[in-house]
Every structure is written in structure tokens, then in C-alpha cells.
């Protein structure tokens, strides 16, 4: 009879183990990916920055769709490198599995990026590269390509006569501007009708650009095209062109789309502007991170295409979306 009792106990134990195993496996299975965390440190979380708000929107949509955990932080000011470095440290303390970073000042972030890499988290850089970062993927606009597109949009296909074109940029020379200029120069070199008169620097303020444009227009009376590398350059140049009644005669091409640039487009002073797709950048950054976590090898460089907006296509469905992001 004792053998009977023993086997009864064994049976009970067996059943209990089976129960536990089933329960454990199921809980584990349900938990699964949920544990994977993606930390995001943006260049800025300033709600006035439409660009970064849109990036964030794209990220949040991707996170919802892919069912991953993301935690987004970032300094209030897009120049606060120290704040960003501190935030990277704080995010790393939570031991994320992947790290998405939009660098404020790439040169000053080298150490912080190295820390991220050392933590073992998959690194995805967005918007700008960081020297020595060697991320799993860099998700950014191809600014050189944007420059090329801008350069091409300066020239209408019917243009036969040669005309002079100048580029206006400030002294900061951000990597983005640098790349844009490179793309522009390439495009001009390929277009025989363009007589490129070079890149001209201005102080950095709108007024500086305005003054510099006036000087340029005086210096090159036949100048028929100006490319503003940033908003200040464009708005300042537009002011000078309008003042001299040269709207339409001097073509102005710019990058990005502030409300002022849009108004300039509407009124025809601005010929075209090349815009980025921050929503796509945010979405693809999170998608890449999620893929990296699943062990997929990523393309080291994921280019987000740039898009030309002119007065004519300003209000098409897709471009409205790009230019007037509807953010909550």
C-alpha cells in the first residue's frame, strides 16, 4: 500500500509540474517582446519645433503599430548639448535594448554615443551622423540629394540662355548645409545654362541676409537665381528681391518650409523649396530599431527622400500633409 501512496504523490507532483510548466511557458510567451525597450533622445522636445514634433509623431505611430515600448526624451533647446548628454545617461540607466538619437551637436556627443555603444544597445542615429558613431543605421535626409534637387528646380527645362546663380549661406556651416551646398554645386556643374557665381556668406540673421542679397544684386546685375541654404537666408533674400521689384525675375529656391517660406511660395517670390519628411524619419527610425532587435541586419544608411514644393503643387493632398503637419 505504501507503494500506492508513493505513486500517488508522484502523480500529483507530475501534474503540478505540468501545470507550472504550462503556466510559465504561457506567461513567458505573452511577455515576449514586451520587455524590449527603445530609448529615444531627440534633438529637442520643444513643441514649437514642428520638425521634431513630426518626427516624434512618426515614432509614436510606429511604436503603436509595431507594439514596442519607446520612451522619448530630449532637451528643450535644440542647442543644449550638455542637457542632451545628461539625458542620454539617464536613458542608458534604464538599460534600453535599442537607442535612437537625434544629435544636437554631433561633435560634442562623441563620448555619449560611445557610452551607448558600450551599453550594448542597438544604436540608431537620426537626422545627423555623429563622428565615430558607427550606428546600426543612420536614418537621415540625404542633404546632398536635397541640394541636387534644389539645384535642378532652379532650372526650368525650357531655359536656354545662360544665367547667373548664387548661393546664400551663413557662417555656421552645419553638416546639413555643407551637404546641401555640395549637392547644389554638383547640380550646377551638370547644368550648362547655370553660371554659378559661388556661395556667399552672411551674418546669420535675416537682416544680414537681406543686406548681403542687396549687395549681391548690385554686384551681379544679371543674377537670376539665389539659393538660400536656410530659412534666414531665404527670408532675407526674398525681402531684398521684393523690395527691388524683382519677384519672378530672380528665382529663389530654399530648403525647409516655415510659414514665411510658404507665404513666399504662395506669392511667387519663392520658386521652390525642398522639404524633408520628418514623419517618415521618425517612423523608419523606430521600425529600424525594432528590426535590429529582431536580429535583422540593417542598412547602415537609410536615406529619407527630400521633396520639392512649388507654388503649383503647394496644396496637393500629399504636400499639404508635409507642409502643414497636423500635430496635436
Amino acid at each position: 500500500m505504501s507503494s500506492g501512496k508513493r505513486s500517488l504523490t508522484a502523480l500529483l507532483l507530475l501534474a503540478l509540474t505540468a501545470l507550472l510548466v504550462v503556466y510559465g511557458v504561457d506567461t513567458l510567451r505573452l511577455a515576449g517582446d514586451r520587455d524590449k525597450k527603445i530609448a529615444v533622445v531627440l534633438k529637442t522636445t520643444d513643441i514649437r519645433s514642428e520638425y521634431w514634433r513630426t518626427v516624434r509623431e512618426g515614432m509614436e505611430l510606429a511604436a503603436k503599430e509595431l507594439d514596442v515600448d519607446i520612451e522619448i526624451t530630449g532637451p528643450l533647446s535644440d542647442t543644449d548639448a550638455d542637457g542632451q548628454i545628461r539625458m542620454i545617461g539617464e536613458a542608458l540607466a534604464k538599460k534600453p535594448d535599442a537607442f535612437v538619437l537625434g544629435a544636437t551637436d554631433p561633435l560634442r556627443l562623441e563620448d555619449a554615443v560611445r557610452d551607448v555603444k558600450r551599453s550594448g544597445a542597438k544604436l540608431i542615429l537620426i537626422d545627423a551622423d555623429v563622428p565615430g558613431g558607427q550606428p546600426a543605421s543612420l536614418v537621415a535626409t540625404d542633404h546632398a540629394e536635397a541640394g541636387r534637387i534644389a539645384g535642378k528646380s532652379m532650372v526650368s527645362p525650357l531655359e536656354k540662355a545662360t544665367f547667373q546663380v548664387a548661393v546664400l549661406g551663413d557662417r555656421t556651416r552645419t553638416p546639413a548645409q555643407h551637404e546641401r551646398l555640395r549637392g547644389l554645386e554638383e547640380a550646377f556643374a551638370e547644368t550648362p545654362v547655370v553660371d554659378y557665381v559661388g556661395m556667399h556668406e552672411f551674418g546669420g540673421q535675416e537682416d544680414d541676409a537681406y543686406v548681403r542679397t542687396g549687395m549681391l544684386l548690385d554686384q551681379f546685375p544679371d543674377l537670376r537665381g539665389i539659393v538660400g541654404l536656410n530659412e534666414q537666408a531665404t527670408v532675407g533674400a526674398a525681402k531684398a528681391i521684393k523690395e527691388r521689384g524683382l519677384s519672378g525675375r530672380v528665382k529663389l529656391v530654399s530648403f525647409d518650409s516655415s510659414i514665411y517660406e510658404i507665404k513666399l511660395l504662395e506669392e511667387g517670390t519663392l520658386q521652390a523649396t525642398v522639404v524633408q519628411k520628418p514623419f517618415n524619419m521618425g517612423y523608419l527610425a523606430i521600425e529600424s530599431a525594432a528590426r535590429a532587435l529582431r536580429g535583422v541586419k540593417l542598412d547602415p544608411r537609410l536615406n529619407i527622400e527630400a521633396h520639392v514644393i512649388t507654388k503649383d503643387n503647394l496644396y496637393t493632398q500629399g504636400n499639404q500633409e508635409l507642409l502643414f503637419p497636423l500635430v496635436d
Partner: protein
Amino acid sequence: MIKGWTADAFKFRSIQISLSVAFLCLILFSILVTSLISYRLSAQSVERNSEHYISEIVQQVNLNLQSYINNMENIGILALTNKDLKYYIESTSFLLEEDVRPYEKKISDLFQSILVTRKDIASIMVFGYNGRIVSDRRITSLNPNSRIEEQPWYKNAKKEGGRSVISSPHVQNIIQNEYRWVVSLSRELKSADGITGEGIFLVDLNLSVIKEICSQINLGKRGYVFILDSEGSIVHHPQQKLIASNLKSELIDEVMTTGTGSFTAGAGGGKRIYTIQETHFGWKIVGVAYANELIVNQQQIRMSYLLWTVLALVIALILSFYLSRRLSSPIKRLQLQMKKVEKGDFDVRTEALPENEIGQLGRTFNVMVGRIKELMEQIIQNEHFKRKSELKVLQSQINPHFLYNTLDSIIWMAERRKHEEVVEMTSSLAKLFRAIINRNDETVPVRVELEHITHYLSIQKMRYKDKLDFRIEADPAMMDYKLPKIILQPIVENAIYHGIKNKPGLGMIRISGSVHEQHLEFVIADNGIGMEPERLEHILKPSEGPTASIGISNVNERIRLFGGEYGIRIKSAPGDGTEVTVLLPKLT
């Protein structure tokens, strides 16, 4: 091999295990079947419920949207019926330049009073074909670069001639420095005759209202709601930007062809259920839910089913074990008793038997064992009796030839007038017979037995004359011990007939008796022709062979009745004589 293995695997050696397995299989089967069926039923109901739920949600979105659109239309009607507005834009009205402004203010006040209560409305405006413009703002500064006549809402309203038109979402840029995402409801205002158009009335609804309605909807983690207009372009889609840049696609064609209803798309983890509702103003509201998320519930159900099934199985296991043990334990007890019987214990009885077939079996077993015991005892008694009677037969069995021969010898001696020999032989014969017949006791003292053998040998010696001689040497200490009757005579008879009779010359028989610690010993030795080993072998075996050997084997058996250590040993070789050793118990 495998077949053999499986066959072996199902041949259980214990009835309890067989029963357990049988119970278990039965219970397992029934539990699995019932769980499976009920799981499927509840999974189906979950799916039905969630489909119902989605369509309710989409319906809700539809109602919300419609209430907004209805409000806009109501505002339109309000404007239409306003006399001031009519007069203001009527081409036939003659308003002096100084009168325009008060009219404008009045209408503007009306619009403002509407707007105060409504956050969802971005603006209300009227564009008279006569060039007069009035809005909800005191001073309407229009964007000089926007061409109102080219805007879709304007063109479409004009085309529709009096019916209201809902636009797709767009950025409204007609007011300077304002770029708002709106949905426009526009309508042509008619003159008093109801035919001539006088202007366009516009109400802009903030798109964020629609986005909010849609984003508040919860269709699982990944599910979403999107809206298409009558042409199939997207009014709202959470992934609008991705679709615009071709990073994502949506099943717009399918939705457009389906109308109100639902369909499923994708497979595996991407399986989605599209639920579509058409609104009366031409938009399609589509709820998209991921099947595996609706089945989040289903997964929980599966989980709890699994757990309950496992629990039920555990109980079933214990139950089947307990039941089978209860059923098989009386059988086991019976088996144990039978084993005892097998070993020869006929005193066992099974007790505490249940009132069923097994109990009956046990009782029958008891009766059977009792009967066997009786029979055994009877057999033993019979055997004993048989031995006794056999012994008697043997004791009385004096070889008739011996008697004839002896009598012949007496006759022969009488004829030769050898009176002394006749007397001697006859007296020996008489004494011999007295020893055999008269004593009714089973055992006799050694002395008597020795007398008996002496008489026998004397007779034989007279008959064989020169051929036979004998000598008896016995320890005087043994004379009073007892031994079974007629032990020595068959052995001596055997020695004469098979050993000495066929031997040329004098045959000598020596009988010696000695007392030992545990037994008495007689040795009967002759110098006859001896025996072949084969003969030696079956001389001690009963039943077969000549009568004389029956005698020896019978003697042996009778001695062995006293114990296995007693009996007869024979040593013999052809030409070498025979020596028979008899070991006997020391009986007193």
C-alpha cells in the same frame, strides 16, 4: 519491433494499471473533446462579439461625424434663411456704400454668436457673386495669393447648385496668415426666385475634430480607423504620411468596392478585419482590427481553458488511480491468498470481502480451498491405509515356490527315511511360519527377526546342501531393539536366488548386525555372482522387475517410512558378490 513494443506497452501486468489507464484514456478523451468544443464555441462567440463591437464603434464614429456635418448644415440653413444676409449678397439689392458696413457687422455678429458655442467650427464665410464678402470676423483680411474661385469647395458648390458639398480635408489658406486643416461644407445661396445663384456659403470644420474622433477609438493596440471620401482619397488615416510616400499601402480599392460591410485581409499575424460604413454624405468610415488582437481575449480564453483542462486532468488522474485501486485491491488480496495456497498453506481464508462478483469469487475460493484441504487429508489417509495393507500383504507373502520346494525336499528326505533332517526341516518351517503369521505386531525385536532368518537359512541350507552356508553375527546389545517384520528375509532370498544359486561351489552368506549412535545397521554380504550396475539400479525401484526385487524395494520403502536417512544401500559388482547395508531406526 515497434509494433511489438506497442503491443507490450499495452499489456499491463497489473489490473490496477490497466484500469487506471483505461479510466485515464476515457477521461482524457472526454475532457479534451468537451474543452475543445467549448473552446471553439467561446472563441467563435468572442470573434462574433468583437466583430459586432467593431461595427458598433464604426457606427459610433459615423454618428459623431454625421452630427458634426448636420450641425454644419444647420448653420448653413440658418444662414440661408437670414434676411440680412440675403439682402447683403443679392445682386439686385441697392445698398449704398455707407450701408454696407452695418449689414456686414450684423451678419458677422450672427456668425460669431454661432461660433461662440462651437469650438469645432473654424470659420463661417459667405462669398457673394457681387464681390461682397462677410465672415465671422470683424475684419476679414483675405490671403491675396489664394484664388478662391479655384478652390474645390467653391467650384463644387457652384456646380451642385444649392446642395451642400463636403470637401476633403485641406489646408484652408483664404485668410491671411492662417493655415488650418479643415473640412469644408459649402453651398450656393440662391436668390428669392430659387434659381439664380447669389454666392457661396462656407463652413469650415476643424479637421482635428475628426482626427480626435478617430484617434479616440480603441480597436486593440494596432487597430485603427480611417476615412475615405467618395472618390477614394484619404480623409483621415493614421498612416497618411507613410501612404503618401508609398511606405505603406492601404486596401483602398477593396474598401471602395465593398460598400457597407466587412472583409478580411492578410494572413497570420497580419490578418485584419475591415469593417466599413458608408455615411450619407459619401464618406466611408473603415475600422481595421487585427485578428490576433481581437483574439487577445481568445488567447486568455485558451489559457484558462488550458489551465482548467490540466486541473481536470489532475483530478481525473487521482480519481482514476483511486477507483482502480479500490476495484483491484480485493483481487490483489485474493491473489495473495492464492499464492499462499500455491505454497501449500490450505488454512488460508479471505475475509472482508465486498458484496460483488469479487466477493463471490473469494467465497468460492474459500469453499474450494476447504474442499481441497479435505481431499488432501483424505488422500493422505488413504495412502496410509494402502501402505498398511500392502505391508500386510507383503508380510503374508511367502514365495509359494519356496514352500513347494521345501515341502518337496521334506518329501524327498522322508522317502530316503532321513527322519532327523525331516524333523529339523519341518520344525524350521513351522517356526518360520509362526514368526510370519502368528505375530500380529508390525514390529518385532531384533532377536525374533534373527531367529526367523536363521530358520529360513537353515531350511535353504538343507535344500542346497553343499552349495550354501551362512553365518550370523549380531551385537548382543541390539537384540532388544525393534524393527519392522521381515526385513532381512527378502534380502537373503535375493542373495540366494540371484547370487549363490547360479554360482559354482560353496555360497556363503554373512549377516552382521551392529548398533550405532543413531541407527542399527545390518550388512548382508554374499560371495555370489554379483550384479550388473543396471540391475543394481532398478533393484531398489518398485513396480518393475522380478518379484524378488519387488521384495527389496518394498523393504526399502517400508524402512524409509521412518525417515529419509534410513534405507538400503547395495554394493555389488559382477563376480564379486553383493553387499547390502540396511540402516534402521533404533526402535524400542
